[in-house]
């Protein structure tokens, strides 16, 4: 068995001494595509940042068998677009942590940044202002910045937030393509299970309000009984046009909502009180979804 890149053992995550969620054991190995799913405010980003070592554990152990090159893609809205940086300058920032102080970026770092932009398909935007890009282009820039560090582990926080369906599929396709063929392991946080159900290999469900942490292979986690723990209602998984569609039911009746394959009722993945993750089921041929199924 391959040694994990990073693992949590019996961990409690939170801020200060206050645990949000306990009993977390998980590992991320090379080539993994792990999606962390749960409602907004459920502890997903806290788990991700704890896994990266950016937040201290409340209890338990963070295991990193060897030094790890990490790339991090924050939520797009967390990056202030008022800063007058070009796409090339933003991408080059990915090399800053590994360079350390007093060492300016040189040719190898610039080449890594150029290569990263090419990998995400926006090398022609290198001279454009970051603030003038579309949401999808900004997302690709932030992914390129993470790739510029040539990471073994790519941590991505809600990359499809606020995107239209086409841009969402395009972003997810990009992540899948990056991860294939010896690319970095990916840990992705999303509040929309539909965004990841056709891409991830492993799913983790996180909801601090329900004291829920569960992790397992995708097929196992997409079983109705596993999904019901996250949605707190019956859930059906359907295949439509080669893509998985998650259809939460109507609460007490246990009856799944009808899936039209075009625009399903908005239902949530998450805790009843918040947010949820309805994602309109898509027909198989929609937008850039062709060939996107696993």
């Amino acid at each position: 068995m391959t040694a994990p890149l990073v693992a949590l053992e019996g961990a409690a995550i939170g801020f200060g001494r206050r645990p949000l969620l306990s009993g977390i054991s998980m590992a991320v190995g090379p080539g993994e595509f792990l999606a962390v799913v749960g409602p907004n405010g459920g502890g997903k980003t806290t788990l991700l940042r704890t896994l990266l070592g950016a937040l201290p554990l409340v209890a338990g152990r963070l295991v990193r068998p060897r030094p790890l090159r990490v790339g991090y893609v924050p939520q797009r809205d967390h990056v202030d677009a008022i800063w007058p940086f070009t796409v090339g300058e933003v991408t080059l920032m990915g090399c800053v942590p590994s360079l350390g102080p007093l060492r300016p970026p040189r040719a190898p770092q610039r080449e890594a940044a150029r290569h990263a932009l090419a990998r995400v398909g926006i090398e022609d935007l290198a001279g454009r202002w970051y603030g003038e890009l579309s949401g999808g282009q900004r997302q690709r820039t932030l992914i390129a910045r993470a790739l510029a560090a040539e990471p073994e582990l790519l941590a991505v926080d809600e990359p499809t937030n606020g995107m239209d369906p086409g841009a969402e599929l395009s972003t997810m396709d990009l992540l899948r393509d990056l991860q294939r063929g010896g690319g970095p392991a990916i840990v992705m946080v999303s509040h929309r299970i539909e965004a990841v159900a056709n891409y991830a290999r492993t799913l983790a469900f996180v909801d601090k309000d329900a004291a829920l942490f569960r992790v397992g292979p995708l097929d196992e986690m997409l079983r109705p009984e596993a999904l019901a723990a996250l949605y707190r209602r019956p859930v059906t998984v359907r295949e439509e046009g080669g893509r998985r569609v998650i259809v939460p039911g109507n609460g007490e009746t246990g009856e799944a909502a009808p899936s039209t394959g075009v625009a399903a009722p908005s239902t949530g993945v998450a805790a009843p009180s918040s947010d949820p993750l309805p994602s309109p089921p898509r027909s198989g041929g929609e937008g850039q979804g062709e060939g996107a199924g696993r």
Partner: protein
Amino acid sequence: MTSALQGFLDAREIWEIPLAASVVAGALLGALGVYVVLRRTVFVSAALTQLSTLGLVATLLVEERFHIETEHPSEQLAVAMACSVLGALVLGAFRPRRLPAEATVGASWVVASSLVVLGASRLVHAAHDLGGLVFGNAVAVPASDLAVIAVVAALATAVHLLFAKELAFVSFDPETAASLGMRVPLWDAVLFATLGLAIPPAARALGALPVFAFLTLPASGALLLKVGFRPAFNVAAGIGVVAAAGGYVLSWVWELPTGATMVALAAVLVVPGALYRLARG
């Protein structure tokens, strides 16, 4: 006008040190203002100016109460700088979770302002010095103050050149920087320490209003021109120099208040950037 200008040139011995101090302070504050504006912390500079003044008042009170006579105000400046740096570290580097940052900045400004008024009301002999110390005295800047401003400017420039990429990264995207293992609070502290050091000597030379203006207007003018991040520092410093020097000369020639003239000229220099943005739509 010509005779006024000639009078100005003939009085070189009077204005050369104050003008040099104004120019250095204008360049320094203009450049630092790029971070102040982009980090959306313009009111931090107002709060720091008040904290610096509080340091001055506290020193004057202690000197009066303990009958310490000081010929030279270096002790007052040192305490003002300590207060300002401490305030900068707290207000700039500390990111409160439970309150908006504006609340902390506003509270600091209003509390410091009140304490300045209360402290000044208890001063007996030094009260008449306070106006110049707080609001600047552009015709009476001692050479020692120019030296302090020059040293602070050199130090700040060195820090910002040597650690440019770290300061830019943690300011632009602190979340990612922290996730990648960078010590964001440390770099924030470095950045705001340069600001905290710069404000008190600049406030003594220019006054509180020009300091606030120079930390805001030149950077705004430069950023509106969309010249890019690094060039913005040079353009903002240039605007600061032109506003400080031009404002000084114009105030002399037209017999206007020096600080206010500098501020007005700095505001005029924002116009090209605003017009450029308007033209670009």
